[in-house]
Protein backbone atom coordinates (compact mmCIF):
# COMPACT_ATOMS: atom_id res chain seq x y z
CA UNK A 1 0.00 0.00 0.00
CA UNK A 2 1.33 3.39 -0.95
CA UNK A 3 1.54 6.20 1.58
CA UNK A 4 -1.20 8.24 -0.06
CA UNK A 5 -4.60 8.40 1.61
CA UNK A 6 -6.49 9.38 -1.52
CA UNK A 7 -5.43 8.42 -5.01
CA UNK A 8 -7.24 9.76 -8.04
CA UNK A 9 -6.17 8.06 -11.26
CA UNK A 10 -7.09 9.41 -14.70
CA UNK A 11 -10.61 10.35 -13.70
CA UNK A 12 -12.86 11.85 -16.40
CA UNK A 13 -16.49 12.89 -16.46
CA UNK A 14 -18.71 14.41 -19.15
CA UNK A 15 -22.30 15.61 -19.05
CA UNK A 16 -23.60 15.01 -22.55
CA UNK A 17 -21.27 16.91 -24.88
CA UNK A 18 -19.81 18.98 -22.01
CA UNK A 19 -16.51 17.68 -20.70
CA UNK A 20 -16.49 18.60 -16.99
CA UNK A 21 -13.38 16.75 -15.83
CA UNK A 22 -10.77 15.45 -18.25
CA UNK A 23 -8.18 12.92 -17.16
CA UNK A 24 -7.23 14.19 -13.71
CA UNK A 25 -4.76 12.37 -11.46
CA UNK A 26 -3.47 13.38 -8.04
CA UNK A 27 -2.80 12.12 -4.54
CA UNK A 28 -3.57 13.44 -1.10
CA UNK A 29 -1.35 12.29 1.76
CA UNK A 30 -2.49 11.55 5.30
CA UNK A 31 -2.82 14.77 7.29
CA UNK A 32 -2.41 16.93 4.21
CA UNK A 33 -4.48 19.97 3.23
CA UNK A 34 -4.98 19.91 -0.51
CA UNK A 35 -6.88 22.61 -2.40
CA UNK A 36 -8.56 22.50 -5.80
CA UNK A 37 -8.58 26.06 -7.10
CA UNK A 38 -10.37 27.30 -10.17
CA UNK A 39 -13.05 29.58 -11.56
CA UNK A 40 -16.66 28.56 -12.04
CA UNK A 41 -17.09 25.81 -14.61
CA UNK A 42 -13.51 24.57 -14.27
CA UNK A 43 -14.64 21.12 -13.10
CA UNK A 44 -13.64 21.41 -9.44
CA UNK A 45 -17.19 20.89 -8.16
CA UNK A 46 -17.72 17.85 -10.40
CA UNK A 47 -14.48 16.39 -9.10
CA UNK A 48 -15.62 17.01 -5.51
CA UNK A 49 -18.99 15.38 -6.21
CA UNK A 50 -17.25 12.33 -7.65
CA UNK A 51 -15.14 12.02 -4.49
CA UNK A 52 -18.25 12.29 -2.30
CA UNK A 53 -20.03 9.73 -4.50
CA UNK A 54 -22.78 11.93 -5.93
CA UNK A 55 -21.45 11.52 -9.47
CA UNK A 56 -19.86 8.46 -11.10
CA UNK A 57 -16.67 8.98 -13.08
CA UNK A 58 -16.88 7.91 -16.75
CA UNK A 59 -13.32 6.68 -16.56
CA UNK A 60 -10.55 6.31 -14.00
CA UNK A 61 -10.29 5.21 -10.41
CA UNK A 62 -10.70 6.80 -6.99
CA UNK A 63 -8.90 4.93 -4.22
CA UNK A 64 -9.10 5.64 -0.52
CA UNK A 65 -6.51 3.78 1.56
CA UNK A 66 -5.98 1.60 -1.50
CA UNK A 67 -9.65 0.56 -1.75
CA UNK A 68 -11.53 1.41 -4.93
CA UNK A 69 -14.58 3.55 -4.20
CA UNK A 70 -16.23 3.03 -7.60
CA UNK A 71 -19.07 0.90 -6.25
CA UNK A 72 -19.60 2.61 -2.90
CA UNK A 73 -22.65 4.87 -2.82
CA UNK A 74 -22.18 8.13 -0.87
CA UNK A 75 -23.68 6.73 2.32
CA UNK A 76 -21.02 3.99 2.52
CA UNK A 77 -17.93 6.16 1.97
CA UNK A 78 -15.63 7.02 4.89
CA UNK A 79 -15.51 10.55 3.47
CA UNK A 80 -17.59 13.46 4.69
CA UNK A 81 -18.40 16.71 2.98
CA UNK A 82 -18.93 20.14 4.46
CA UNK A 83 -21.44 21.66 2.05
CA UNK A 84 -21.04 25.15 0.67
CA UNK A 85 -24.36 26.40 2.02
CA UNK A 86 -24.02 24.06 5.00
CA UNK A 87 -27.19 22.06 4.07
CA UNK A 88 -28.17 21.84 7.74
CA UNK A 89 -31.43 19.99 8.39
CA UNK A 90 -33.85 22.83 9.22
CA UNK A 91 -36.27 20.68 11.23
CA UNK A 92 -33.60 19.28 13.55
CA UNK A 93 -31.88 20.96 16.49
CA UNK A 94 -28.14 21.59 16.48
CA UNK A 95 -27.66 18.46 18.60
CA UNK A 96 -29.77 16.29 16.27
CA UNK A 97 -27.99 17.68 13.22
CA UNK A 98 -24.65 16.69 14.70
CA UNK A 99 -25.92 13.31 15.93
CA UNK A 100 -27.49 12.49 12.54
CA UNK A 101 -24.50 10.65 11.11
CA UNK A 102 -23.96 8.62 14.29
CA UNK A 103 -27.62 7.59 14.45
CA UNK A 104 -27.39 6.27 10.88
CA UNK A 105 -24.52 4.07 12.05
CA UNK A 106 -26.70 2.73 14.85
CA UNK A 107 -24.84 4.52 17.65
CA UNK A 108 -27.27 5.11 20.52
CA UNK A 109 -27.63 5.88 24.22
CA UNK A 110 -24.68 7.11 26.27
CA UNK A 111 -22.22 6.54 23.42
CA UNK A 112 -24.33 8.75 21.13
CA UNK A 113 -24.59 11.49 23.77
CA UNK A 114 -20.86 11.38 24.54
CA UNK A 115 -19.68 11.56 20.95
CA UNK A 116 -22.20 14.28 20.03
CA UNK A 117 -21.10 16.30 23.07
CA UNK A 118 -17.48 15.84 22.03
CA UNK A 119 -18.11 17.11 18.52
CA UNK A 120 -20.08 20.11 19.83
CA UNK A 121 -17.24 20.93 22.24
CA UNK A 122 -14.71 20.59 19.43
CA UNK A 123 -16.31 23.49 17.54
CA UNK A 124 -17.29 25.35 20.77
CA UNK A 125 -21.03 25.08 20.33
CA UNK A 126 -21.93 23.91 23.83
CA UNK A 127 -25.04 25.64 25.07
CA UNK A 128 -26.52 26.11 21.62
CA UNK A 129 -27.41 22.47 21.16
CA UNK A 130 -31.19 22.93 21.47
CA UNK A 131 -31.43 25.67 18.84
CA UNK A 132 -32.71 25.20 15.31
CA UNK A 133 -30.40 26.21 12.42
CA UNK A 134 -32.64 29.21 11.63
CA UNK A 135 -31.82 30.63 15.08
CA UNK A 136 -28.05 30.66 14.49
CA UNK A 137 -25.67 33.20 12.98
CA UNK A 138 -23.72 32.42 9.83
CA UNK A 139 -20.58 31.56 11.76
CA UNK A 140 -22.46 29.30 14.15
CA UNK A 141 -24.11 27.47 11.25
CA UNK A 142 -20.67 26.96 9.76
CA UNK A 143 -19.53 25.35 13.01
CA UNK A 144 -22.57 23.07 13.14
CA UNK A 145 -21.81 21.95 9.58
CA UNK A 146 -18.23 21.25 10.62
CA UNK A 147 -19.21 19.33 13.77
CA UNK A 148 -21.73 17.30 11.78
CA UNK A 149 -19.10 16.37 9.20
CA UNK A 150 -16.43 15.59 11.82
CA UNK A 151 -18.54 13.55 14.24
CA UNK A 152 -18.03 10.35 12.24
CA UNK A 153 -14.25 10.83 12.21
CA UNK A 154 -13.89 10.62 8.42
CA UNK A 155 -10.50 9.78 6.96
CA UNK A 156 -10.91 12.62 4.53
CA UNK A 157 -12.97 15.77 4.92
CA UNK A 158 -14.12 17.54 1.77
CA UNK A 159 -14.78 21.25 2.18
CA UNK A 160 -16.76 23.09 -0.49
CA UNK A 161 -15.88 26.82 -0.37
CA UNK A 162 -15.53 26.67 3.43
CA UNK A 163 -14.91 30.40 3.96
CA UNK A 164 -16.83 32.04 1.12
CA UNK A 165 -20.09 32.48 3.04
CA UNK A 166 -18.36 34.34 5.88
CA UNK A 167 -17.48 37.99 6.29
CA UNK A 168 -13.85 39.09 6.37
CA UNK A 169 -13.24 38.96 10.13
CA UNK A 170 -14.96 35.61 10.55
CA UNK A 171 -12.93 34.19 7.68
CA UNK A 172 -9.62 34.62 9.53
CA UNK A 173 -11.04 33.12 12.70
CA UNK A 174 -12.63 30.19 10.90
CA UNK A 175 -9.50 29.49 8.88
CA UNK A 176 -7.41 29.25 12.04
CA UNK A 177 -10.10 27.11 13.67
CA UNK A 178 -10.29 24.70 10.73
CA UNK A 179 -6.53 24.27 10.58
CA UNK A 180 -6.31 23.77 14.36
CA UNK A 181 -8.87 20.95 14.16
CA UNK A 182 -7.18 19.50 11.11
CA UNK A 183 -3.87 19.28 13.02
CA UNK A 184 -5.40 18.05 16.27
CA UNK A 185 -7.41 15.30 14.62
CA UNK A 186 -4.73 14.45 12.06
CA UNK A 187 -7.29 14.68 9.26
CA UNK A 188 -6.73 15.16 5.56
CA UNK A 189 -8.63 18.08 4.05
CA UNK A 190 -9.58 18.52 0.43
CA UNK A 191 -10.75 22.09 -0.13
CA UNK A 192 -12.56 23.22 -3.24
CA UNK A 193 -12.55 26.95 -3.79
CA UNK A 194 -12.55 29.73 -6.36
CA UNK A 195 -10.80 32.04 -3.88
CA UNK A 196 -7.03 32.08 -4.33
CA UNK A 197 -6.43 33.54 -0.87
CA UNK A 198 -8.46 30.78 0.74
CA UNK A 199 -6.47 28.17 -1.19
CA UNK A 200 -3.03 29.72 -0.65
CA UNK A 201 -3.48 30.42 3.04
CA UNK A 202 -4.84 26.99 3.97
CA UNK A 203 -3.32 24.44 1.63
CA UNK A 204 -0.10 22.47 1.93
CA UNK A 205 -0.44 21.87 -1.79
CA UNK A 206 -2.87 23.19 -4.35
CA UNK A 207 -3.95 22.37 -7.88
CA UNK A 208 -5.04 25.09 -10.29
CA UNK A 209 -7.89 23.77 -12.45
CA UNK A 210 -8.99 25.09 -15.81
CA UNK A 211 -11.28 23.53 -18.42
CA UNK A 212 -11.59 20.26 -16.54
CA UNK A 213 -7.87 19.65 -16.16
CA UNK A 214 -5.01 20.48 -13.79
CA UNK A 215 -2.77 23.29 -15.01
CA UNK A 216 -0.30 23.05 -12.16
CA UNK A 217 0.10 21.28 -8.83
CA UNK A 218 2.47 22.35 -6.09
CA UNK A 219 2.93 24.19 -2.81
CA UNK A 220 1.29 27.63 -2.82
CA UNK A 221 4.68 29.40 -2.65
CA UNK A 222 6.05 27.35 -5.50
CA UNK A 223 3.07 27.86 -7.78
CA UNK A 224 3.00 31.57 -6.94
CA UNK A 225 6.70 32.05 -7.61
CA UNK A 226 6.92 29.81 -10.67
CA UNK A 227 3.53 29.66 -12.40
CA UNK A 228 3.48 27.19 -15.28
CA UNK A 229 1.30 29.32 -17.55
CA UNK A 230 -0.03 32.84 -17.96
CA UNK A 231 -3.41 31.64 -16.76
CA UNK A 232 -1.97 30.32 -13.49
CA UNK A 233 0.03 33.52 -13.00
CA UNK A 234 -3.09 35.67 -13.35
CA UNK A 235 -5.35 33.37 -11.37
CA UNK A 236 -3.01 33.07 -8.41
CA UNK A 237 -2.49 36.61 -7.21
CA UNK A 238 -1.73 39.74 -9.19
CA UNK A 239 0.73 39.58 -12.10
CA UNK A 240 2.21 41.82 -14.76
CA UNK A 241 2.76 39.99 -18.04
CA UNK A 242 5.49 41.42 -20.25
CA UNK A 243 6.11 40.12 -23.75
CA UNK A 244 9.41 38.21 -23.91
CA UNK A 245 11.64 37.52 -26.89
CA UNK A 246 11.09 34.11 -28.52
CA UNK A 247 13.12 31.27 -27.02
CA UNK A 248 15.65 29.08 -28.81
CA UNK A 249 12.87 26.96 -30.35
CA UNK A 250 11.21 30.13 -31.67
CA UNK A 251 8.24 29.98 -29.31
CA UNK A 252 6.85 33.27 -28.03
CA UNK A 253 6.85 33.83 -24.31
CA UNK A 254 5.86 36.14 -21.48
CA UNK A 255 7.64 37.34 -18.39
CA UNK A 256 5.68 37.25 -15.15
CA UNK A 257 6.48 40.11 -12.79
CA UNK A 258 4.68 40.24 -9.44
CA UNK A 259 3.59 43.76 -8.33
CA UNK A 260 5.40 43.48 -4.97
CA UNK A 261 8.72 42.73 -6.70
CA UNK A 262 8.81 46.16 -8.36
CA UNK A 263 10.68 48.83 -6.39
CA UNK A 264 9.24 52.30 -6.77
CA UNK A 265 11.01 55.56 -5.89
CA UNK A 266 10.91 59.27 -6.61
CA UNK A 267 14.56 59.43 -7.62
CA UNK A 268 16.42 57.24 -10.08
CA UNK A 269 18.42 54.82 -7.90
CA UNK A 270 20.28 52.59 -10.33
CA UNK A 271 21.19 52.24 -13.97
CA UNK A 272 18.27 49.86 -14.62
CA UNK A 273 15.55 52.18 -13.34
CA UNK A 274 12.68 52.93 -15.71
CA UNK A 275 10.90 56.29 -15.81
CA UNK A 276 7.11 56.21 -15.35
CA UNK A 277 4.20 58.20 -13.99
CA UNK A 278 1.40 57.04 -11.72
CA UNK A 279 -2.01 56.55 -13.34
CA UNK A 280 -4.04 55.03 -10.52
CA UNK A 281 -3.77 54.70 -6.75
CA UNK A 282 -5.77 52.29 -4.56
CA UNK A 283 -5.03 52.52 -0.85
CA UNK A 284 -5.69 49.17 0.86
CA UNK A 285 -4.40 49.91 4.36
CA UNK A 286 -1.47 47.52 4.68
CA UNK A 287 -0.38 48.29 1.14
CA UNK A 288 -1.13 50.58 -1.78
CA UNK A 289 -1.83 49.21 -5.24
CA UNK A 290 -0.61 51.47 -8.04
CA UNK A 291 -0.85 51.44 -11.79
CA UNK A 292 2.10 53.20 -13.43
CA UNK A 293 2.74 53.72 -17.15
CA UNK A 294 6.39 53.59 -18.19
CA UNK A 295 7.82 56.10 -20.63
CA UNK A 296 7.79 53.24 -23.17
CA UNK A 297 3.98 53.06 -22.70
CA UNK A 298 3.67 49.81 -20.71
CA UNK A 299 1.18 49.81 -17.80
CA UNK A 300 2.47 48.00 -14.71
CA UNK A 301 0.77 47.12 -11.45
CA UNK A 302 2.83 47.84 -8.37
CA UNK A 303 2.26 47.02 -4.71
CA UNK A 304 3.93 49.46 -2.38
CA UNK A 305 4.18 49.46 1.42
CA UNK A 306 4.26 53.26 1.35
CA UNK A 307 0.92 55.04 1.23
CA UNK A 308 1.88 58.53 0.03
CA UNK A 309 1.61 58.24 -3.75
CA UNK A 310 -0.36 60.69 -5.90
CA UNK A 311 -1.92 60.31 -9.32
CA UNK A 312 0.20 61.86 -12.08
CA UNK A 313 3.40 61.77 -10.00
CA UNK A 314 6.57 60.95 -11.98
CA UNK A 315 8.44 57.94 -10.50
CA UNK A 316 11.20 55.46 -11.25
CA UNK A 317 10.65 51.68 -11.29
CA UNK A 318 13.24 48.94 -10.86
CA UNK A 319 13.28 45.16 -10.43
CA UNK A 320 15.77 42.31 -10.17
CA UNK A 321 16.29 40.00 -13.10
CA UNK A 322 15.46 37.20 -10.62
CA UNK A 323 11.97 38.63 -10.20
CA UNK A 324 11.14 37.78 -13.82
CA UNK A 325 9.71 34.34 -14.47
CA UNK A 326 9.31 33.19 -18.06
CA UNK A 327 6.22 31.29 -19.23
CA UNK A 328 5.62 30.11 -22.78
CA UNK A 329 1.92 29.39 -22.72
Amino acid sequence: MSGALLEVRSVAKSFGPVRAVADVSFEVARGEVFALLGGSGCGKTTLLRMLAGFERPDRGQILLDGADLADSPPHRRPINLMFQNHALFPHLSVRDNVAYGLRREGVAGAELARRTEEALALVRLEGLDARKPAQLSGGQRQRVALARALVKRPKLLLLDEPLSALDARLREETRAELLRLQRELGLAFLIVTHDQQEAMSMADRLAVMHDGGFMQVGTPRDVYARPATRHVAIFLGNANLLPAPADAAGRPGWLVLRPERIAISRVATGAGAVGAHIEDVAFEGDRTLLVARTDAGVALRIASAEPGWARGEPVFLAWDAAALHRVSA
Partner: protein
Amino acid sequence: MRRVLALPGLWLALFLAVPFGIVLAMSFATADADRAPPVAFSLTLKNYALLFSDPLYLAAWIASLRIAATSTLVALLLGYPMALAIARAPRRRQPLLLALVILPFWTSFLIRVYAWMGLLADNGILNNLLKTLGLASAPGTILGTEWAVHLGIVYAYLPFMVLPIYAVLERQDRALLEAAADLGAAPWAAFVTITLPLSQPGIVAGCLLVFIPSVGEFVIPDLLGGTGTPMIGKVLWDEFFLNADWPLASAVAVCLLALLAVPIALFQRHHAERLR
Protein backbone atom coordinates in the same frame (compact mmCIF):
# COMPACT_ATOMS: atom_id res chain seq x y z
CA MET B 1 -56.20 53.06 0.97
CA ARG B 2 -58.31 52.49 4.02
CA ARG B 3 -61.37 51.86 1.86
CA VAL B 4 -59.47 49.32 -0.26
CA LEU B 5 -58.47 47.46 2.88
CA ALA B 6 -62.07 47.48 4.09
CA LEU B 7 -63.27 45.79 0.90
CA PRO B 8 -62.29 42.20 1.81
CA GLY B 9 -63.97 42.71 5.18
CA LEU B 10 -67.13 43.87 3.47
CA TRP B 11 -66.92 40.89 1.12
CA LEU B 12 -66.62 38.47 4.02
CA ALA B 13 -69.53 40.11 5.83
CA LEU B 14 -71.75 40.11 2.76
CA PHE B 15 -71.09 36.61 1.43
CA LEU B 16 -70.08 34.67 4.52
CA ALA B 17 -71.29 36.22 7.76
CA VAL B 18 -74.78 37.26 6.57
CA PRO B 19 -75.69 33.92 4.92
CA PHE B 20 -74.31 32.03 7.88
CA GLY B 21 -76.31 34.27 10.23
CA ILE B 22 -79.46 33.34 8.32
CA VAL B 23 -78.66 29.61 8.54
CA LEU B 24 -77.84 29.93 12.25
CA ALA B 25 -81.09 31.78 12.94
CA MET B 26 -83.04 29.24 10.92
CA SER B 27 -81.57 26.35 12.91
CA PHE B 28 -83.44 27.66 15.98
CA ALA B 29 -86.72 28.04 14.07
CA THR B 30 -89.65 25.66 13.55
CA ALA B 31 -90.72 24.09 10.27
CA ASP B 32 -94.04 25.32 8.95
CA ALA B 33 -95.14 23.77 5.63
CA ASP B 34 -97.85 26.40 5.09
CA ARG B 35 -95.41 29.25 4.74
CA ALA B 36 -93.01 30.14 1.95
CA PRO B 37 -90.21 29.65 2.83
CA PRO B 38 -91.48 26.89 5.12
CA VAL B 39 -90.08 28.38 8.29
CA ALA B 40 -91.69 29.91 11.38
CA PHE B 41 -89.13 31.89 13.37
CA SER B 42 -88.80 30.97 17.01
CA LEU B 43 -86.05 30.23 19.47
CA THR B 44 -86.12 26.49 20.05
CA LEU B 45 -83.38 23.91 20.59
CA LYS B 46 -85.53 21.00 19.45
CA ASN B 47 -83.76 20.70 16.08
CA TYR B 48 -80.44 20.18 17.86
CA ALA B 49 -82.07 17.93 20.43
CA LEU B 50 -83.34 15.71 17.63
CA LEU B 51 -79.90 15.60 15.97
CA PHE B 52 -78.28 14.36 19.15
CA SER B 53 -81.02 11.93 20.19
CA ASP B 54 -82.03 10.19 16.96
CA PRO B 55 -79.52 7.35 16.31
CA LEU B 56 -80.02 7.80 12.55
CA TYR B 57 -78.22 11.13 12.62
CA LEU B 58 -75.48 9.88 14.88
CA ALA B 59 -74.90 6.92 12.54
CA ALA B 60 -74.74 9.30 9.57
CA TRP B 61 -72.15 11.46 11.37
CA ILE B 62 -70.02 8.47 12.20
CA ALA B 63 -70.31 7.02 8.69
CA SER B 64 -69.33 10.38 7.17
CA LEU B 65 -66.29 10.79 9.39
CA ARG B 66 -65.22 7.19 8.85
CA ILE B 67 -65.59 7.32 5.05
CA ALA B 68 -63.89 10.71 4.85
CA ALA B 69 -61.02 9.50 7.08
CA THR B 70 -60.33 6.30 5.16
CA SER B 71 -60.65 8.12 1.82
CA THR B 72 -58.20 10.75 3.02
CA LEU B 73 -55.74 8.06 4.10
CA VAL B 74 -56.01 6.26 0.75
CA ALA B 75 -55.65 9.58 -1.11
CA LEU B 76 -52.51 10.30 0.96
CA LEU B 77 -50.99 6.89 0.23
CA LEU B 78 -51.67 7.33 -3.49
CA GLY B 79 -51.03 11.06 -3.69
CA TYR B 80 -47.71 11.24 -1.83
CA PRO B 81 -45.80 9.00 -4.26
CA MET B 82 -47.39 10.88 -7.17
CA ALA B 83 -46.34 14.25 -5.73
CA LEU B 84 -42.83 12.91 -5.02
CA ALA B 85 -42.48 11.51 -8.54
CA ILE B 86 -43.55 14.83 -10.09
CA ALA B 87 -41.24 16.84 -7.81
CA ARG B 88 -38.28 14.58 -8.71
CA ALA B 89 -39.05 14.50 -12.44
CA PRO B 90 -36.87 16.60 -14.77
CA ARG B 91 -37.88 20.21 -14.32
CA ARG B 92 -39.06 20.71 -17.90
CA ARG B 93 -41.42 17.74 -17.66
CA GLN B 94 -43.06 18.86 -14.40
CA PRO B 95 -45.62 21.26 -15.96
CA LEU B 96 -46.94 18.44 -18.16
CA LEU B 97 -47.28 16.03 -15.23
CA LEU B 98 -49.03 18.70 -13.15
CA ALA B 99 -51.38 19.42 -16.06
CA LEU B 100 -52.29 15.72 -16.14
CA VAL B 101 -53.18 15.87 -12.44
CA ILE B 102 -55.44 18.89 -13.01
CA LEU B 103 -56.83 17.68 -16.36
CA PRO B 104 -60.00 16.04 -14.90
CA PHE B 105 -61.12 19.50 -13.70
CA TRP B 106 -61.72 20.43 -17.33
CA THR B 107 -64.78 18.14 -17.21
CA SER B 108 -67.76 18.72 -14.99
CA PHE B 109 -67.56 17.04 -11.61
CA LEU B 110 -71.06 15.62 -12.02
CA ILE B 111 -70.29 14.06 -15.40
CA ARG B 112 -67.18 12.40 -14.03
CA VAL B 113 -69.18 10.84 -11.19
CA TYR B 114 -71.80 9.64 -13.71
CA ALA B 115 -68.97 8.11 -15.72
CA TRP B 116 -68.01 6.06 -12.67
CA MET B 117 -71.56 4.73 -12.54
CA GLY B 118 -71.08 3.35 -16.04
CA LEU B 119 -67.72 1.88 -15.11
CA LEU B 120 -68.85 0.25 -11.89
CA ALA B 121 -72.36 -0.98 -12.79
CA ASP B 122 -73.11 -4.71 -12.50
CA ASN B 123 -73.11 -4.89 -16.28
CA GLY B 124 -70.54 -2.10 -16.57
CA ILE B 125 -67.13 -1.85 -18.15
CA LEU B 126 -65.17 -3.04 -15.11
CA ASN B 127 -67.25 -6.17 -14.57
CA ASN B 128 -67.21 -7.03 -18.29
CA LEU B 129 -63.45 -6.61 -18.36
CA LEU B 130 -62.99 -8.90 -15.38
CA LYS B 131 -65.27 -11.47 -16.99
CA THR B 132 -63.44 -11.31 -20.33
CA LEU B 133 -60.10 -11.77 -18.57
CA GLY B 134 -61.56 -14.69 -16.64
CA LEU B 135 -60.83 -13.05 -13.30
CA ALA B 136 -64.47 -13.12 -12.20
CA SER B 137 -67.18 -15.58 -13.11
CA ALA B 138 -70.30 -13.81 -11.85
CA PRO B 139 -70.48 -10.03 -11.92
CA GLY B 140 -69.56 -8.58 -8.52
CA THR B 141 -71.52 -5.71 -7.10
CA ILE B 142 -69.48 -2.56 -6.70
CA LEU B 143 -71.91 0.21 -7.53
CA GLY B 144 -74.14 1.00 -4.59
CA THR B 145 -71.59 -0.10 -1.99
CA GLU B 146 -69.33 1.85 0.31
CA TRP B 147 -66.42 0.69 -1.87
CA ALA B 148 -67.79 2.77 -4.72
CA VAL B 149 -68.19 5.79 -2.44
CA HIS B 150 -64.58 5.51 -1.28
CA LEU B 151 -63.40 5.08 -4.85
CA GLY B 152 -65.38 8.11 -5.99
CA ILE B 153 -64.12 10.35 -3.20
CA VAL B 154 -60.49 9.31 -3.65
CA TYR B 155 -60.76 9.83 -7.40
CA ALA B 156 -62.46 13.22 -7.12
CA TYR B 157 -60.22 14.70 -4.41
CA LEU B 158 -56.83 13.15 -5.23
CA PRO B 159 -55.55 16.34 -6.97
CA PHE B 160 -56.19 18.28 -3.76
CA MET B 161 -53.80 15.89 -2.01
CA VAL B 162 -51.16 15.87 -4.74
CA LEU B 163 -50.84 19.62 -5.31
CA PRO B 164 -49.99 20.90 -1.79
CA ILE B 165 -47.58 18.00 -1.18
CA TYR B 166 -45.92 18.64 -4.53
CA ALA B 167 -45.61 22.35 -3.70
CA VAL B 168 -43.69 21.53 -0.51
CA LEU B 169 -41.52 18.79 -2.02
CA GLU B 170 -40.60 20.88 -5.04
CA ARG B 171 -39.18 23.60 -2.76
CA GLN B 172 -37.07 21.19 -0.74
CA ASP B 173 -33.33 21.73 -1.07
CA ARG B 174 -31.82 18.70 -2.82
CA ALA B 175 -28.54 19.35 -1.00
CA LEU B 176 -30.28 18.17 2.20
CA LEU B 177 -30.68 14.67 0.74
CA GLU B 178 -27.07 14.70 -0.39
CA ALA B 179 -26.02 15.76 3.10
CA ALA B 180 -28.06 12.89 4.55
CA ALA B 181 -26.45 10.42 2.14
CA ASP B 182 -23.01 11.84 2.92
CA LEU B 183 -23.66 11.23 6.63
CA GLY B 184 -24.52 7.58 6.01
CA ALA B 185 -28.26 7.58 5.34
CA ALA B 186 -29.39 5.00 2.79
CA PRO B 187 -32.04 6.41 0.40
CA TRP B 188 -34.94 5.02 2.44
CA ALA B 189 -33.54 6.39 5.71
CA ALA B 190 -33.00 9.79 4.09
CA PHE B 191 -36.63 9.79 2.96
CA VAL B 192 -37.96 8.95 6.42
CA THR B 193 -35.70 11.33 8.36
CA ILE B 194 -35.53 14.30 5.96
CA THR B 195 -38.04 14.34 3.09
CA LEU B 196 -41.06 13.12 5.05
CA PRO B 197 -40.80 15.39 8.12
CA LEU B 198 -40.06 18.42 5.94
CA SER B 199 -43.13 17.74 3.81
CA GLN B 200 -45.41 17.67 6.86
CA PRO B 201 -47.09 21.05 6.10
CA GLY B 202 -48.03 19.75 2.65
CA ILE B 203 -49.39 16.51 4.11
CA VAL B 204 -51.50 18.39 6.66
CA ALA B 205 -52.84 20.82 4.04
CA GLY B 206 -53.59 18.00 1.57
CA CYS B 207 -55.38 15.90 4.20
CA LEU B 208 -57.56 18.86 5.26
CA LEU B 209 -58.37 19.72 1.64
CA VAL B 210 -59.54 16.14 1.06
CA PHE B 211 -61.11 15.43 4.46
CA ILE B 212 -63.21 18.58 4.87
CA PRO B 213 -65.20 18.43 1.62
CA SER B 214 -65.41 14.62 1.88
CA VAL B 215 -67.28 14.75 5.20
CA GLY B 216 -70.05 16.88 3.70
CA GLU B 217 -69.94 15.22 0.27
CA PHE B 218 -73.41 14.69 -1.21
CA VAL B 219 -73.14 13.90 -4.94
CA ILE B 220 -70.76 10.93 -4.67
CA PRO B 221 -72.63 8.97 -1.95
CA ASP B 222 -75.93 9.82 -3.68
CA LEU B 223 -74.87 8.52 -7.10
CA LEU B 224 -72.37 5.79 -6.26
CA GLY B 225 -73.49 4.78 -2.76
CA GLY B 226 -76.25 2.46 -1.76
CA THR B 227 -79.33 2.62 0.42
CA GLY B 228 -77.42 1.71 3.59
CA THR B 229 -76.20 4.28 6.10
CA PRO B 230 -76.32 7.70 4.43
CA MET B 231 -73.55 10.26 4.78
CA ILE B 232 -74.41 13.53 6.52
CA GLY B 233 -74.46 15.52 3.26
CA LYS B 234 -77.19 13.22 1.99
CA VAL B 235 -79.13 13.67 5.24
CA LEU B 236 -78.93 17.43 4.86
CA TRP B 237 -80.17 17.23 1.28
CA ASP B 238 -83.06 14.93 2.23
CA GLU B 239 -84.18 17.13 5.14
CA PHE B 240 -84.11 20.16 2.92
CA PHE B 241 -85.64 18.91 -0.33
CA LEU B 242 -87.62 15.79 0.58
CA ASN B 243 -88.93 16.69 4.04
CA ALA B 244 -88.89 20.46 3.47
CA ASP B 245 -87.60 20.77 7.07
CA TRP B 246 -85.34 23.77 6.59
CA PRO B 247 -84.66 24.36 10.28
CA LEU B 248 -83.44 20.79 10.83
CA ALA B 249 -81.33 20.99 7.67
CA SER B 250 -79.85 24.25 9.00
CA ALA B 251 -79.04 22.60 12.32
CA VAL B 252 -77.22 19.83 10.44
CA ALA B 253 -75.27 22.46 8.50
CA VAL B 254 -74.29 24.34 11.67
CA CYS B 255 -73.09 21.13 13.33
CA LEU B 256 -71.12 20.20 10.23
CA LEU B 257 -69.39 23.55 10.26
CA ALA B 258 -68.64 23.32 13.99
CA LEU B 259 -67.21 19.84 13.51
CA LEU B 260 -64.93 20.90 10.65
CA ALA B 261 -63.78 24.00 12.50
CA VAL B 262 -61.88 21.77 14.94
CA PRO B 263 -59.31 20.34 12.48
CA ILE B 264 -58.93 23.74 10.81
CA ALA B 265 -58.20 25.40 14.16
CA LEU B 266 -55.69 22.66 14.99
CA PHE B 267 -53.98 23.20 11.65
CA GLN B 268 -53.78 26.95 12.20
CA ARG B 269 -52.23 26.52 15.61
CA HIS B 270 -49.77 23.97 14.29
CA HIS B 271 -48.86 26.31 11.46
CA ALA B 272 -48.36 29.26 13.84
CA GLU B 273 -46.10 27.11 16.03
CA ARG B 274 -43.96 26.14 13.07
CA LEU B 275 -43.46 29.75 12.11
CA ARG B 276 -42.35 30.66 15.60
